[in-house]
């Protein structure tokens, strides 16, 4: 099992968070803290780059729905980028693609925030 890593970069007004390793109940609080901190700073446009993510648990996915909902209320969103096929199948199976936007291309994902 790979350790969870998290890095944040700003892309204009959008916060790009790169996730790597295993996002499970044990590691999720680190992402939760990061997102809550951004929301407190009035940063509600968040793009999660999942390219190097090898696992995501059901609680983590469920919590992302809540974050996306909170962000939308403030005119932003929480979206996913570069989701590995194996993880995408899980997200799709659970029906989360209906409430979480998933992108394959960073420029398109970034542009989609201005379309909100």
């Amino acid at each position: 099992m790979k350790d969870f890593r998290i890095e944040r970069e700003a892309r204009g007004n959008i916060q790009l968070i790169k996730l790597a390793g295993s996002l499970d109940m044990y590691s999720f609080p680190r992402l939760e803290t990061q997102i809550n901190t951004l929301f407190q700073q009035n940063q509600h446009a968040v793009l999660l780059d999942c390219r190097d993510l090898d696992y995501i648990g059901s609680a983590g996915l469920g919590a992302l729905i809540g974050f996306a909902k909170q962000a939308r209320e403030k005119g932003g969103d929480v979206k996913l980028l570069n989701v590995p096929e194996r993880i995408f199948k899980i997200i799709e199976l659970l029906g989360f693609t209906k409430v979480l936007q998933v992108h394959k291309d960073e420029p398109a994902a970034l542009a989609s925030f201005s379309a909100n």
Partner: protein
Amino acid sequence: MGDLPKGISVGHTDTEVHVRVVGRGTFQNGQPLRRYALEMMEHGVVQFIVDLGGCDGMDSTFLGVLAGIGLRLTQSNRAGQIHVANVGQRNLELLQTLGLDRLFGMDQPAGRNLHYDAPAGLAFQRLPDSDVTQLSKPLNKSDTADLMLEAHDNLIRADQRNLAKFKDITSFLREKVDKRAGDGHKEK
């Protein structure tokens, strides 16, 4: 634990069910364990011992399945209980975070969890489709949503503090399940 098969293996005596989790316990292999546990409870077995010595991690759905077994056993009026044993630090913290250490028989006052060896000679069988790295068929959407909803409801029943953690996922899943019931059909 390196030589044990990945997945969930089970064995039982007349009075106890022994469960061994090797690898991850997730929503993908929670269903076979749930079904097996219900079957054994119908046969009157009310003591479950879950060996987590080889368990790399559990998601909330799997923990909710274990909580559901524990809740049924404690409410069965037959002095049943689920015991978890050989719990590593990471899994111990998960159990404590969700308040499940109080539901499962753990030697908390002494600050350590139960050490356990399966009874000598007990035959274990791996539950079908319990190795999440080698599932033979795609999961069914409806069954998975039902399982996840029930599991997260169990976590909330086990400890009301979990409501805040899981309100988003339960409300999303309940809406989905209710919509399906209203539509009168099951998604494949």
